[in-house]
């Protein structure tokens, strides 16, 4: 018994068309990465490199003016004497390293009240507007025994919050139950926490005694090595993409890789080799003639070309008018004028062996030769 089956349809799309969506997707990813990948450098508040109103570049310059060697870095080095943490975005490991550094004798100034390194906030209203006792509005006075702050009069601290003064710690710029500045020893060093970095932004640094506070805290002697810890950009932590992706997703991706390998194996062995065959010569019969024309042009052999064209006209006219090929141009011109009504001057001009000064003249001659030939042959 013979049963006739069916043929599956043949795939007709070319490989190029099939790969277009993939190429497009790749391009889109690259463009997206370029658009979103660049880090903004001017807009971060309290960025020690930023000269924007809320940046902290002025603080760095101020400290340098007072003799300190200031460095903006992501981490402390053992030789540093003072570290300034304006915005705390440290990872757990970096924070641990910072604590260890303080314990070996460093001075840490934390201007971020939300930092783990700062003490807890004081109870009550979060807002802190000023020293009510002195009737100074937004301004605060030190009111504390710390000798370092002896020269500081009043400071302006907009948007700051009071910190709780814990046991063993010293609070300055007191407000309500807390203080704006809390200094507490840690190991061999000291941590000075502030209820906000507001006094150190570019716009506020020259208000009241803010600059005096900065210098008193960070560069009291003038030979300190200060490191301003840079607020690290989002995504600059030590955890990579692979740490964030769960194991199941990773396993699924591995499985997709296996599938891709199988796909590659499937496509690698093609069904039938390409068939080779000898290619016939693809040379136009008129190639030689075209090449001669090109050579004439490149060698600027205008006169030679003109001679060829005139010879053609002479031969055509002699055939059409029944004259010998070597008849004088005047005779040919006259015969052509009689038979076809061609102006005799044109024929004489075309046949005269005058030099051809430029390519435009050659084009004119070629056109004249052809029009004369046609006129005479049509008149017959």
């Amino acid at each position, binding site marked *: *018994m*013979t*049963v*006739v*089956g*069916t*043929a*599956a349809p*043949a795939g007709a799309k070319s490989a190029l068309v099939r790969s277009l969506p993939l190429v497009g997707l790749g391009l889109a990813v690259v463009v997206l990465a370029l658009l979103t990948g660049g880090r903004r450098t001017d807009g971060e508040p309290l960025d020690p490199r930023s000269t924007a109103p809320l940046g902290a570049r002025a603080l760095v310059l101020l400290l340098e003016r007072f003799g300190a060697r200031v460095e903006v870095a992501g981490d402390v080095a053992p030789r540093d004497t003072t570290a300034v943490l304006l915005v705390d975005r440290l990872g757990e490991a970096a924070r641990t390293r910072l604590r260890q550094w303080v314990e070996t004798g460093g001075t840490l100034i934390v201007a971020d009240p939300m930092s783990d390194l700062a003490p807890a906030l004081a109870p009550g209203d979060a807002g802190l507007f000023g020293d009510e006792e002195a009737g100074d509005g937004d301004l605060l006075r030190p009111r504390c025994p710390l000798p370092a702050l002896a020269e500081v009069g009043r400071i302006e601290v907009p948007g700051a919050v009071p910190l709780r003064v814990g046991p063993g710690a010293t609070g300055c710029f007191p407000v309500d139950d807390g203080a704006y500045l809390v200094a507490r020893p840690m190991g061999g060093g000291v941590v000075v926490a502030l209820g906000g970095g507001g006094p150190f932004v570019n716009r506020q640094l020259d208000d009241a005694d803010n600059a005096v506070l900065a210098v008193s805290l960070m560069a009291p002697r003038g030979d300190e090595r200060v490191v301003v810890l840079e607020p690290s950009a989002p995504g600059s932590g030590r955890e990579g993409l692979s740490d964030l992706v769960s194991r*199941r*997703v990773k*396993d*699924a*991706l*591995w*499985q*997709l890789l*296996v*599938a*891709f390998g*199988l*796909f590659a*194996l*499937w496509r690698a*062995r093609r*069904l*039938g080799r390409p*068939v080779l*065959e000898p290619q*016939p*010569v*693809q*040379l*136009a*019969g*008129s*190639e030689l*003639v*075209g090449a*001669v*024309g*090109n050579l*004439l*042009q490149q060698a600027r052999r205008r006169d*030679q*070309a003109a001679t*060829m*064209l005139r*010879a*053609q006209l002479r*031969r055509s006219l002699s055939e059409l008018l029944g004259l010998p090929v070597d008849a004088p141009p005047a005779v040919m011109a006259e015969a052509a004028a009689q038979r076809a009504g061609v102006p005799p001057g044109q024929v004489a001009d075309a046949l005269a062996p005058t030099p051809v000064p430029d*390519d*435009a003249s*050659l*084009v004119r*001659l*070629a*056109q004249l030769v*052809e*029009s004369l030939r046609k006129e005479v042959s049509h008149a017959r």
Partner: protein
Amino acid sequence: MPTGRLAAVAAGSSVAVGLFPGDSTLGLLVVNGLVLVVALVDWALTVRPAAVAVERELPAVVTLGQSARIMWWVGNPGGRRLRVSLADELAPSLRAGRRRLTLIVPGRGRAGAGTDIRPARRGRFELREMVVRVEGPVGLMARQERRMLPATMRVYPQFASRDEAELRINRARILQIGLRSAQGRGGGTEFDSMREYGPDDEFRRIDWAATARAGKPIVRTYRAERNQTVLLLLDNGRVMAGRVADVPRLEHAMDAVMMLAAVATRLGDRAGLVAFDREVRAVVPPSHSAAQLTRVTEAMYSLQPELVESDYEGAFVETLARFRRRAMLVILTELAEQALADTLVPALPLIVRDHLVVLGSVQDPAVVASANSSPDSPAGSYAKAAAVAALEERRRLVGRLRGMGATVVDAPPGRLAPGLADAYLKVKATGRL
């Protein structure tokens, strides 16, 4: 080998891997192990391609310009339905609709599919092998093998001037059997038969002896000589490789060869072929059999222009040594002065003495158009000058060859074969052979 389905299954099982309970990579191993086991079983159960019956049906001869059909048949010896993919060794210039296909073959059954081919060039096409791929019962694995299935297909040149040939054969026959009065000097010179005098017969044709015997006027009738020889010398050298009207000059010359062979054999003459370049490539001895056109075509179909200088003298010597009778020698070549001046021109006197020599060549319409153009750029003007010079050179060469006693037919594409056939018919009519 794996199939696309196995890859798809592996990709799909990534979901299973992701949802696998537990916190280790055990899921990856378990899922892949399962897939591997199933794939191995599938592979073991896959029918070997050698066990599948594969056939190819293809025409032995195709004429260029016509289409033909190729069929593939696959027989399934087993009871299970098979999915079989085939790839045949069809050259690109056969212009097949497809050369790869997939068939679903029922158990103990047969399935077939075909495609149309429309060859783009003539010649001999050798098909050797066919690649067969059989998928397993689940379709996860496949086996692939090459099967030797040698076959040959010949693509014959196109006989574009067939209609023109028929026209001339019919006209010549009408003249022969006297349905119309003969023109020119004609009527032939060979005695044919005697018949009763008719009013239009010439007096000089009356056979008086026969008239006396019969008691009524009897005339002799004559016919054109038969059994004369037309030898077609086909140049296969470099000058024939250039393309004119989109095909090599050789194709135009082959058309002329076929037309002359058809006309000559049908009119009772013997036509033969010698194809040559540096050496003689093909020889068909003159014959007036009806199959001569086929023999000539068969001898020519696989010729490709050789990029060498043709040896005319050697070809003439070879031809004359084989065929000594006076013949009409039709040389199909290109009238290129630098090629012919050194070889053909010195050799021509040898053969013009004893034979009637006709040279056939195809004109390039591109050159003629360039020579008759009215250019509007310097490049066009120089091209026109070059074309004019080339045509002039050609004209001089034709004049020189005619002066040596040869007949020259230099015609545009499509007119070469009719022009040569007309030249042949004229030669016959005037009894010059």
